[in-house]
């Protein structure tokens, strides 16, 4: 597809006989590029990972939104989908994986366990009650496990969030 046909391209494309030029803001172009090629880390601890695998597959097919390149190493990933319970023993590993990812990095907390401990909130001694105690989270998805549609929705929400980021302009308070 031609760049100018892509409707959400932020800016104006002016055609001239010798090629043409684009009029836009650098922030907008960077955000547009980043939000449409998020590479998730293949990180699954329990049940939600299976629903994440279903989302990869033909019926839901998250590659339509630019997520298809699953990376096994955090050093090549932009996004970590924490799918499944994080226990006290796993928490330092998750923090370490997050630290190894290059900036800019994003986190999706998938499932009830990552939000609050979920079914394992009461009467357990080993579950972290919400991964926001360990790493900053961009999008939370409720459900046990969430449906693939919910995961897709969260990804689109994350894209919307990325599109409003600023790199060169200082935020006005």
């Amino acid at each position, binding site marked *: 597809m031609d760049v100018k046909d892509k409707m959400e391209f932020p800016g104006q494309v002016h055609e001239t006989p010798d090629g043409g030029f684009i009029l836009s803001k650098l922030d907008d172009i960077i955000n547009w590029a980043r939000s449409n090629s998020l590479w998730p880390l293949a990180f699954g601890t329990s*049940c939600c990972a299976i629903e994440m695998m279903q989302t990869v597959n*033909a019926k839901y097919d998250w590659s339509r939104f630019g997520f298809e390149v699953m990376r096994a190493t*955090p050093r090549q990933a932009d996004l970590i989908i924490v799918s499944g*319970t994080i226990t006290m*023993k*796993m928490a330092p*590993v998750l923090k370490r994986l997050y630290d190894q990812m290059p900036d800019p990095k994003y986190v999706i907390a998938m499932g009830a366990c990552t939000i609050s401990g979920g079914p394992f909130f*009461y009467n*357990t*001694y080993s579950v972290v009650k919400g991964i926001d105690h360990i790493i900053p989270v961009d999008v939370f998805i409720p459900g046990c496990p969430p449906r693939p549609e919910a995961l897709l929705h969260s990804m689109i929400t994350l894209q919307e969030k990325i599109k409003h980021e600023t790199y060169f302009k200082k935020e006005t308070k």
Partner: protein
Amino acid sequence: MLFEPDHYNEEGEFVVNMGPQHPSTHGVLRLKVWLDGETIKKVEPHLGYIHRSIEKMTESLSYRQFIYVTSRMDYLSAHINNQVCALVVEKALQVEVPARAQAIRVILAELTRISSHLLWFASIGLDLGGVTPFFYAFREREAINSLMDENCGARLTQNFMVPGGIMKDVLPNFQQRVKEVLKQFKDNYHEYDEILTGNVIFQNRLKGVGILTKEDAIAFGCTGPTARASGLNCDIRKLYPYDGYEKLQFDEITSTGGDCWARYEVRMAEMKQSVKIIEQLIDNIPEGEIVGNTKKVIKLPKGEFYQRVETARGELGVYIVSDGGTTPYRCKYRSPNFANLSAIPHIARGHKIGDLISIMATIDLIIPDIDR
């Protein structure tokens, strides 16, 4: 311990950590591997990265509630995990389960077994370097998940069991939908053989690798397809029938090879047997009640109760000690994956590190079931 780096030890062996974040461990298992060149000298599994204290939680949940936590144990056999908990309560209370509930339970359990083996088929392809089996298997898995979604209300963790029967009746189009799913599975089954079973590279990765003898399988307590591939008759559906399996005609698949290829063949053949079981039942679902006669607040009599079922991975046992109250005094799960995992250090010794992936893929571990 956690941040232990890979290193050479005094004997010149390279000690490398596989996991807890590794795509082929299917979760958060950590294997510490001692290598001499590429040859495995020793493997040591480290557990507890997904220990969620389910057994301890059970002590504070009532007999109606504790069933649903077990869906998160072996999440691919969620329905069968629920079944064993319902069965142990029924056994203790001596409740008669209506025939209709039993038939629906078995149909859903066998569908769960098919979908679990399909996921195993998808992931073994992925682990050994083929991506297409992943898409083939998930096509059928998605159909089964949609069926579960319509009837149970959840795609993966069904929570459809109550002590004495099932939660609600199935939809009127249940039989037709199951037949559609089975037809899709049977029509597409030959594609699995074409893409993976007949592949020479794939066969070479599995044949003669990771041999588990029958004696070792007994010694390590292996069950399920892993042990049946070593020639051990251990199908709980045959040995200790439950929920009407004794009335059904099906074969217990065994093989004598004991290697990864035998485990592969056993699982592939088991899917066909599950189809056979469902086909016997689907036209003969009896009419009638779906829940037996149980009280709203269940109190188990004082004593100890044990019940076992055959999940997709082997024998799952639940052992409950009751003090006569509304919650269990102690609950212990005998999970198949824990016993199967204990065989890995033995059978991986002397193989190349690449073969460890084949061994782990064919033993088909679910880590939350090991740690619970």
